[in-house]
């Protein structure tokens, strides 16, 4: 079984076959690893790499929104991972954007719209503040990822927005 796995933005090609109960032969970008894997909880997986002195790692895995998008916790850090990136990509809102010249700014977390700092038609510079969203007692400025013109402002002050909600489109 072959997967395309994107770890922190880096795309990897991974093939998995079960070589024995709890044992997997995993080919990562051409290199073969013999891995002993055991579920250690709803969201946890214990891996022991064979032939590397038995390197042991405990990873925590949970879905993070859209299908194929997961968070992987390891050793105090968290990696954003997409499985079969291309397929899920096609579904994701920001992806389509990447194709044409548009750039969508979406809410990074649930919150309340405090201020809107640009109107449709405005020319904006890169990193120019566009919207202020309040969450957890903090006001967070969302900035333009690149220079362009505001095509659409999809929210109004006072609105409560969910994470991922479209806020502004830049073209």
């Amino acid at each position, binding site marked *: 079984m072959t997967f395309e796995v994107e770890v922190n933005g880096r795309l990897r090609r991974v093939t*998995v076959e079960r070589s024995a109960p709890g044992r997997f032969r995993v080919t*990562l970008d051409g290199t073969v690893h013999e891995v002993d894997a055991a579920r250690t909880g709803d969201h946890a997986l214990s891996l022991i790499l064979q032939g590397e002195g038995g390197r042991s790692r405990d990873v925590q895995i949970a879905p*993070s929104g859209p299908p194929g998008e997961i968070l992987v*916790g390891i050793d105090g850090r968290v990696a954003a991972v997409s499985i079969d990136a291309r397929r899920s990509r096609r579904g994701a809102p920001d992806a389509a954007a990447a194709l044409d010249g548009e750039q969508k700014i979406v809410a990074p977390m649930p919150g309340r719209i405090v201020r809107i700092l640009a109107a449709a038609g405005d020319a904006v510079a890169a990193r120019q503040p566009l919207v202020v969203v309040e969450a957890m007692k903090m006001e967070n400025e969302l900035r333009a990822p690149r220079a362009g013109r505001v095509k659409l402002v999809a929210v109004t002050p006072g609105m409560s927005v969910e994470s991922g909600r479209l806020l502004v489109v830049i073209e």
Partner: protein
Amino acid sequence: MKILVANRGEIAVRIVRACRELGIPAVAVYSDCDRGARHVRDADQAVHIGPSEAARSYLCIDSILDAARRSGADAVHPGYGFLAENAQFAAACRDAGLTFIGPASETIAMMGSKTAARAAAARAGVPAVPGTLDPVGPAVAPAEVACIAREIGYPLMVKAVAGGGGRGMRPVDDEASLKDAVRAARSEAGSAFGDSAVYFERRLRRPRHIEIQLLGDNHGTVVPFVERECSIQRRHQKVVEESPSLAVSPELRGRLAAAAAAVARSVRYSGAGTIEFLLDESGAFFFLEMNTRLQVEHPVTEMVTGIDLVQWQIRIARNERLDIDAAAALVPAGHALECRIYAEDPDHGFLPSPGLIRGLRPASGPGIRDDGGVAAGYVVPMFYDSLIAKLVAWAPSRGAAIQRMSRALHEYHVLGIRTTIPFFLWLMAQPEYIAGQYDTTYLDRLLAERVAAPGATSFNQLPDGDDDLVAVAAAIDAYLQAGRRVDEGATGAARWTGVARREALRG
């Protein structure tokens, strides 16, 4: 005695624990989104006080007094934040016949006005940071404002008189930028505290934030404790605290403690309070403000003195006499650090990261204390402060405490939301931090440099091997999930609804 805890999250859990150890029943209050919160589950009683918006629940004095009445509570512990420094609330509790666990309403009111507090310190013979003695209200003419500023001298800080939590503050480097700074500070102060009055303070160069925790009882005894250093701040918000401070000698400690005690005695302070100082490069210190409540960072003091500050707050409210060895309270046993674990994403400008906690395994073991406020299955709400836990490490030496903290951070699993744990792992490895060479400007400078640096890496950057391993783990997980899909004869989508359903059970 039955105590209503007028708060939520980790501090509510902390107070419930103190009540349990003293054999006192604890009543929790909760808003809509906190029905399943840990402080509700841990308390002996729980009363719903309104919708999720703090203004209509945790900040609503009437609802809380009503909850006290319905639950039969005769005392109220405000924790910190919310109504903890609200003089009206303290008065309302008193008028309702409830013991307010904290100082008198009048003391809260006086220290709540930064200018009045600075005056009180001066009367007690403690120098405050040079600045205006009186508020600069909206009435004062721009020209006069400029004069006042010139008297103080640049660089200076414009601060809200009713300020707190780093809001309503603006640094000013020269007269040119004064006008805008004052306007900005006033409007922010107005919306944040309903009082747009500001004042000016000279800005010290590279100051260290040193504070003295103290307890005062109702019989005139005031006991100051060994200092805490809270100079590791991000945008005027403390993120790491420690005790003792490397910058404080026993001799200086004695003078800081004496100054703090003098201020507290001058207002006949009762309860737990903290006097904040700025320490400049020359070793001179200045009164900054007094917090008339428990502090988030109180555990580091508890770790190096063995004193349970929350239990003492309650005992003082019961009119008990302090019987703490005042000399011992100034001699730290070992060294303690606290990392504030926030639901924020350090890789995206520390944006809030509320949401469902799918998995949680706090750190434990030797020298580690976890004061947490959440549990697996709980949805961290977007309505309140993002502090989800305080991780405290103790060791005989500062170096060993840092190693222990790193060990514990590696061990700490929070799954489902982003937290500041990866940021702390990075900070604990910074040479200046390890050497203790920092001041209140250190972290913001360091973070700015980091962002500016070419090829800046994520706080979640993994060693190369582990990067591979994450890909391997994700693929094996997907492989096993696919297996399950087949077993269950379900579609690819079913996996996710399956997950969703399991989560749904978590309420």
